[in-house]
């Protein structure tokens, strides 16, 4: 009997220590703690834990803080972003790599130049490879594309036939809305 009581008590101990129990709940628990050293230890542990959380010293906002924040809020009204108008402390890791090229004109020119050189190299490589792997006329005629086109033509024809017959079209957002 005792152990089941202990189980119940222990679920209530944190709430008891946090002052969250009603007097009706707290009173029998208090009685139990007086007679049960194990549960009392559990309660004491929580009490010990709370010593690790000393009340912090108050930290007063600097003078003029509210006026400054209100000004910043209203100044940013036109651009409505979630970014604060006054920047946060500099953060080393958060600078995104992408905007660099557009921000520095010299770097931008360099990156553009490098890109065009790479593009030219890639193009000549592609041309060379195309030259090497030129397919014969026979290979070209064997391409599966024409059959796919034929299939598509057939489907299109069937579709227009259906429409002519008054078969219902696939429902679009508009038709669904009108229903």
């Amino acid at each position, binding site marked *: 009997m005792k152990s089941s009581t202990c189980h119940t008590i222990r679920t209530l101990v944190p*709430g008891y220590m946090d002052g969250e129990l009603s007097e009706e709940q707290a009173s029998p628990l208090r009685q139990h703690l007086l007679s049960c050293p194990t549960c009392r230890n559990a309660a004491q542990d929580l009490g010990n834990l709370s010593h690790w959380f000393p009340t912090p010293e108050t930290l007063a906002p600097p003078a003029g803080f509210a006026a400054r924040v209100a000004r910043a*809020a209203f100044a940013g009204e036109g651009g409505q972003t979630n970014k604060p108008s006054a920047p*946060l402390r500099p953060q080393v890791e958060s600078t995104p790599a992408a905007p660099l090229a557009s921000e520095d004109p010299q770097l931008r020119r360099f990156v553009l130049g490098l890109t065009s050189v790479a593009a030219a190299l890639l193009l000549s490589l592609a041309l060379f490879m195309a030259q090497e792997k030129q397919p014969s006329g026979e290979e070209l005629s064997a391409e599966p594309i024409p059959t796919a086109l034929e299939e598509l033509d057939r489907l299109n024809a069937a579709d227009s036939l259906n429409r002519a017959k008054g078969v219902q079209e696939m429902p679009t957002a508009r038709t669904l809305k009108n229903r």
Partner: protein
Amino acid sequence: MYQMQPAPSKDADLIAETLAGQQLSFQLLVERYQGRLFGLIRNYTRNTAEVEDIVQDAFLKAYVKLDTFQHQASFSTWLQRIAINTALDFMKRCGRSPVQSVEDPELITDPRSFDRRRMMAPDARLQREEIAEVTHRVLEELPDIFRTVIILREFEDRAYQEIADMLGVSIGTVESRLFRARARFKEALVRMYPEFDPNTDEGGSIH
């Protein structure tokens, strides 16, 4: 009959005036809640300049979102929720937040399976600042949801209901999260500072 002393403007009035373009009304809102937000956020970082940045950012976000504020919750609760999220975002951006921010399923979930390890109070010789430093370091190791619930309960002394409102969860969730958070705190404390582990003593004498 005597007219009562004019009561300070209600939050709802100041909010409406702010939305109508009254900068001073917003300033009054900031003045009303800045102390509470500074107190709350200083639990997340011990750097005063960072606290100021985060609180300012939180107020600016609140201003931008003010028209979405539903009056079912109190403005204070709504504002503090924004501030907590701003602080947690800030920590993530600085790489000072543990990656894992979901509840740990491996952790004991039933308060009845009570942790048998004993907990000791900080050594009496430790200064308050030293205790605060240790606690802060340990809290930094905890996933966001545990750190926040501990901050709200242990430092801010908030009632379960208020924590539930602030985090948008049930009281039951607050209770179980708090239970896990405390267990995690104990575990991290003795792992990071074995000298505070009463269970490692030879003979394991517990007083």
